[in-house]
């Protein structure tokens, strides 16, 4: 299997190999466009693989290249589709971009995700205390704030409005202050709790050279401080549409300013958006985000989204010093009991849960929706937040966590 039968003449080899090399480099480009981290070394190894007989059968080559080029589970899962599409001309099963495809020509803008940073005050006429019931709501148009809806909004969301530089700077500033406040607090407490650890002989000897090697002052090994990690879960459903823009900017700041942070969007499904938001190229980031956020602006299934989070992401993104921040109005269209259970499971895993609720800022609002009622017992800090300024005002509370 590892050898390739007859030996063709040298000219033939040259002819074939230059063709193959071209195809291979085109394939590498396709992979890079789809988010694979493929370097020069991988390309060289792929060429040597093909030279040593792995190209004899498509199945074998696919399997070999899959091991070589994949770096994580998501790569692993979509590789077969990409390979088949490129080399065998089959249709791609998963959603992926092939080389040279028109760059996301379809990104219809969504009216209800307009920038709300400055206009919030002027819209206050439509800001009403929402009723918890689930009716279709008598009012039409952009001010539909009534509860949560079960419908999935299938249009793609345009997050282009996020790119306003001033707003971004503001968001980063808020996130930076938050990061600073939360970091110092947790570190100090950590240090006070810990006393005495294993003896560090190497350092002890070094310290006591001046005493002629007699160990007088002992050095203990210190455990390294783990930086605080912030995981943000943002509700991007229809009822939250006024605030999604603000908080997305905030998340952007959080991802930049915290040493460790992860971000998720949820509505009827959960999407991991850290990768897309960390993208250097802003246009690409927005395109990826639009694809990920498909369905945003529809209903909310917080319980199910949290279940997905607990099941598939929690083990990876939550460690002993993680604070989970949920930004949602708590209008749940799914099962409120499920939400309660998943919140309990989440509370067991992470250090602190903060629930920021934009609705809380309104006068006369009381947490009566079934969802928020089920979740509240597991929340460490429940606070209002609807603008960047109000986020900054939270600083002293968050620092105390």
């Amino acid at each position, binding site marked *: 299997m590892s050898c390739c039968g007859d030996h063709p003449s040298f000219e033939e080899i040259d002819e074939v190999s230059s063709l193959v090399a071209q195809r291979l480099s085109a394939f590498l480009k396709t992979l890079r466009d789809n988010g694979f981290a493929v370097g020069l070394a991988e390309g060289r190894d792929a060429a040597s693989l093909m030279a*040593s007989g792995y190209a004899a059968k498509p199945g074998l080559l696919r399997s070999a290249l899959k091991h070589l080029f994949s*770096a994580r589970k998501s790569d692993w899962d979509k590789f077969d589709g990409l390979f088949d599409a490129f080399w065998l001309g089959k249709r791609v099963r998963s959603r992926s971009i092939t080389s040279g495809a028109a760059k996301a020509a379809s990104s219809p803008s969504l009216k209800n995700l307009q920038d709300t940073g400055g206009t919030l005050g002027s819209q206050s006429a439509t800001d009403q205390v929402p009723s918890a019931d689930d009716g279709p709501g008598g009012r039409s148009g952009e001010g539909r704030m009534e509860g949560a809806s079960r419908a999935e909004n299938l249009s793609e969301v345009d997050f282009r409005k996020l790119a306003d530089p001033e707003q971004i700077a503001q968001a980063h500033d808020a996130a930076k202050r938050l990061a600073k406040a939360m970091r110092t607090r947790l570190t100090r407490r950590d240090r006070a709790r810990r006393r005495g650890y294993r003896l560090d002989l*190497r350092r002890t000897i070094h310290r006591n050279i001046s005493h002629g090697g007699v160990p007088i002052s002992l050095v203990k090994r210190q455990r390294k401080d783990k930086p605080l990690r912030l995981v943000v879960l943002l509700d991007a459903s229809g009822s939250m549409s006024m605030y999604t823009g603000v908080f997305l900017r905030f998340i952007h700041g959080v991802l930049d300013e915290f040493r460790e942070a992860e971000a998720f969007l949820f509505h009827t499904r959960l999407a991991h958006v850290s990768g897309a938001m960390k993208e250097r190229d802003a246009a690409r980031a927005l395109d990826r985000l639009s694809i990920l956020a498909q369905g945003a602006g529809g209903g909310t299934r917080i319980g199910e989204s949290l279940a997905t989070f607990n099941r598939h992401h929690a083990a990876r993104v939550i*460690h002993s010093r993680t604070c989970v921040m949920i930004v949602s109005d708590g209008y749940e269209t799914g099962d409120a009991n499920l939400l309660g259970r998943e919140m309990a499971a989440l509370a067991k895993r992470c250090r602190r849960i903060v629930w920021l609720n934009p609705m809380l800022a309104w006068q006369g609002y009381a947490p009566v929706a079934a969802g928020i009622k089920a979740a509240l017992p597991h929340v460490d800090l429940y606070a209002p937040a609807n603008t960047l300024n109000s986020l900054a005002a939270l600083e002293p509370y968050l620092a105390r966590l």
Partner: protein
Amino acid sequence: MKTRDEIAQALAACGYIADAELSTAVSLMQLLKRPLLLEGEAGVGKTEVAKALACAYATELIRLQCYEGLDQSAALYEWNYQRQLLAIQAHHGADADAIEDQIFSEKYLLERPLLAAIRRETPPVLLIDEIDRADDEFEAFLLELLSDFQVSIPELGTITASAIPHVVLTSNGTRELSDALRRRCLYHYVDYPDVDREARIIMARIDSASASLSLQIARMVEGIRKEELRKVPGVAETLDWAAALVGLDVRDLHDVPETVFETMMCLLKTREDRARVTREVSQRLLGKVA
């Protein structure tokens, strides 16, 4: 061990039933001399791959179990300080240079797994288990070691690998690994085995398990994995369960539905899962098993 079939056979002889993809991965490891990164749920047999590999190559398995706070002195080398101090005291008054040469010699060097792996004459299998539990700093250090296979000990000089070890890394995904480390490795995702393979695994591992019983157990476990569970049973649990059933002299699962239900403690490890798989669910699953 050249072709994939030979690799699969050699692994099978060591009690590991590999699928075609894993055999490809191992053959690539040989060809490209790259480390192999295995990811997958807990209990799917990632560590077993390394053990089987060591057995197939008939070489030593050197294992480095990673944990939070693992540092160079636990992973690479450490001077034996107690003995060094003792030697200094014993040779009190002797020539300082001579003492120094003596106490920084091989005799006082404690070899840890990574150093051991690169100093062997025949290439061993180096298993770096649960790399995701180690810190970022350690990961960066490991990256350097895995690319050059040489270590510099300030007091002793640079030690270059005499033979390049076969490196297997495993990760449970409790932390996102760095892109640099991922890029350097071949990647293989270890999934739960299909029914046929799981049955063969049971037969390979448990001597007195008959083919029909193994198949029944594998089908049953497949059914259980499809239930909404908090902790999905892995291959290790399946083997525990099979051993339990064989130990209880079970020949056919249909004969003893009660025992099947009671021994499920081998598979279901949380209270909620236990509550979810009730007697009825167990009966239903058993009904589907041919």
